């Protein structure tokens, strides 16, 4: 008896909580990359300005925030130039929000393809996260250009030594967004209401995060609010980003510990929920 094939898969009933097969996901890395390319290629086909929209969107938001919160409300920016401050806020938060908003539609938007062919379902949310990351990088380049302009003017002093932390920070935000996104996407297979809530919820979350204001401003206003904000896993990345590029963020090890713990818990929960739902979800949509 000769064993000709080493390849063997076994499918059984979907019972209990299952493990995520990351090795399989890695084998499909070409697919993930192609999804990323597709997302980028088709988004701006037949538009006049094309990929420029990636930059125009945050610019418009940043301009709006500058007028609303900077000029009209006069919120402090911790010494950073207002336009730079709000551009950083929209770029980082935009990355996180895009992860959650787009990933949460994973199952509902792809039910047609999911019910026809098998590939690791996680390839979809992961590629969505990577697309959002690429968009962020483009915006980040624009941000850097503006930053250098202000540095040349002497209006802002970045902590250049801390800049290598940026990728870690992005990984943290991306994984947190992925975790939240796949939790919502898994729940939306059963509860469609969440689709409506999620966009609003993410917006609400933004105002509960130091995006258009600084943590130090809250600290001076209300102690309980400050503590509540420390529990928010997005506070640490936002403030760290400012610490790196404006030299004026408020970051403590406790904040990071909390943020990382949140990310780990949400991601683990999301992955197990997702892998449970993916097995039989085509039967319920």
């Amino acid at each position, binding site marked *: 008896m000769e064993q000709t094939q080493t*390849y063997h898969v*076994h499918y059984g009933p979907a019972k209990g909580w299952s493990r995520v097969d990351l090795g399989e996901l890695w084998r499909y890395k070409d697919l993930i990359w*192609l999804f990323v390319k597709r997302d980028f290629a088709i988004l701006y086909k037949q538009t006049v300005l094309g990929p420029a929209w990636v930059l125009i969107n945050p610019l418009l938001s940043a301009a709006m925030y500058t007028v609303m919160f900077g000029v009209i409300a006069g919120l402090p920016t911790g010494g950073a130039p207002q336009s730079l401050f709000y551009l950083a806020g929209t770029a980082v938060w935009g990355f996180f929000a895009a992860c959650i908003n787009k990933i949460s539609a994973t199952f509902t938007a792809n039910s047609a393809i999911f*019910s026809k062919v098998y590939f690791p379902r996680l390839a979809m949310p992961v590629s969505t996260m990577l697309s959002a990351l690429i968009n962020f990088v483009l915006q980040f380049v624009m941000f850097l250009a503006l930053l250098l302009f202000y540095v040349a003017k002497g209006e802002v002093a970045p902590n250049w030594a801390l800049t290598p932390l940026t990728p870690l920070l992005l990984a943290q935000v991306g994984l947190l967004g992925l975790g939240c996104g796949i939790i919502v996407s898994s729940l939306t297979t059963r*509860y469609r209401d969440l689709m409506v809530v999620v966009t609003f919820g993410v917006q609400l979350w933004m105002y509960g995060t130091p995006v258009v204001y600084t943590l130090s401003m809250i600290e001076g206003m209300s102690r309980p609010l400050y503590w509540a904000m420390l529990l928010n896993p997005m506070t640490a990345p936002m403030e760290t980003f400012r610490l790196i590029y404006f030299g004026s963020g408020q970051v403590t090890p406790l904040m990071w510990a909390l943020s990382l713990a949140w990310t780990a818990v949400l991601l683990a929960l999301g992955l197990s929920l997702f892998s449970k739902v993916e097995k039989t979800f*085509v039967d319920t949509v």
Partner: protein
Amino acid sequence: MQQDDTMIRVRGVKKQYRLGQIGGGTLRGDLQSWWARKRGKEDPNTLIGTDQRLIGTTFMALNGVSFTVKKGEAVGIIGSNGAGKSTLLKLLTHVTAPTEGDIDLYGRVASMLEVGTGFHPEMTGRENVYLNGAILGMTRAEIDAKMAEIIAFSEVGDFIDTPVKRYSSGMYVKLAFSVAAHLDSEIMIMDEVLAVGDMKFQKKCLTKMRQAATRDGKTVLYVSHNMATIRDLCDRCIVLDQGKIVFDGAVDEGIAIYLAARGQSGSGSAMDYTRYQRESWCENDALRIRSIRFAADSVEALERTAPVRLTMTVDARQAAQQIGLRFEVRDEVGAPLATSCLYGLQMHPGENRLALEYDLSMLSPAQYNTYFTLFTAGEGGGNSDEDCVPGPRFGIVDTYGESRVEWNARRWGLVQLPDARLLPGMAE
């Protein structure tokens, strides 16, 4: 674990679906139901006035299916709608999980449950080949290696770098099929994908599939309603009925069992005349056509050159001699067009079964109405009709190539007389 050359092993697989309400569908509804149950109250979300037993009842799409498939086998899976074919394929391709039982696959699976899955209209043919290939489990390097072959097979040619939204539907499916057909897998699972493109391309696809099984030693699992392709492609046949395997063995036997089962349910190309109200002129019920069943699964698209087979059941009150049968073909609006006769039938009292074959190769591609008439041949060429029933409306399709032109029925008529013969030595 793996015994000899087993490629697929399915053991006691069941798949249960829930009918009716699946959950409340909303979080609020679910919480309400949960809270009501918690307090021992009636669920406020239970529908009133509907059959309570039906809500949440389950239905077994597959009910204990077991089989093994060996390397190089081409297995056809047939069964009427709802027999569980599609469910079985979904389980084998890992699209959804079984409720019970085990599935073991000893090889990579290429699934073609639907061609062109994941094709994006805005992307070019080439980009879609990469994406579709990757969705089906190929790596970029594998696709690169096969790209030229895929493009050649698809006949898309120079259009490969055009967005597929500009493609004709034929080009679209051809390209999609080509990707699926060139997957590097040991097991190919297909669901009627061969019903794509024109006849010529379908033939090419079939040949490719047959090669996969015989030459490349791949294992092919093919689901279809088209008995002709099953017969052509497969060397083993599994018949599913109501979630169970009712037959597993030789193709012809399997098809016969499947067709017989279908006849009982009176669907498709089978006609039952037990309740048919005859015209007033044939009230004499000495001979009655009880049923007609075509061998083809569907008579909507019969191939012109293929013989049409059918079985007819006739009830006779008493023995009868010199019985004839007319098969009358009328055009779409009902004008008589052509008739085929059968003479010298003998009927014995009770049930008579006739197996018949008709040559319809003289009919052009079109839709036709039919009548079956039983008659008694009299002396001197006279006849008296005994029973007359309308047969199914059928359609003829044809293949054209270099040696045959498309028949222009509007100018040349619906009937194609046999081709003329060139006699030798008469050219001078």
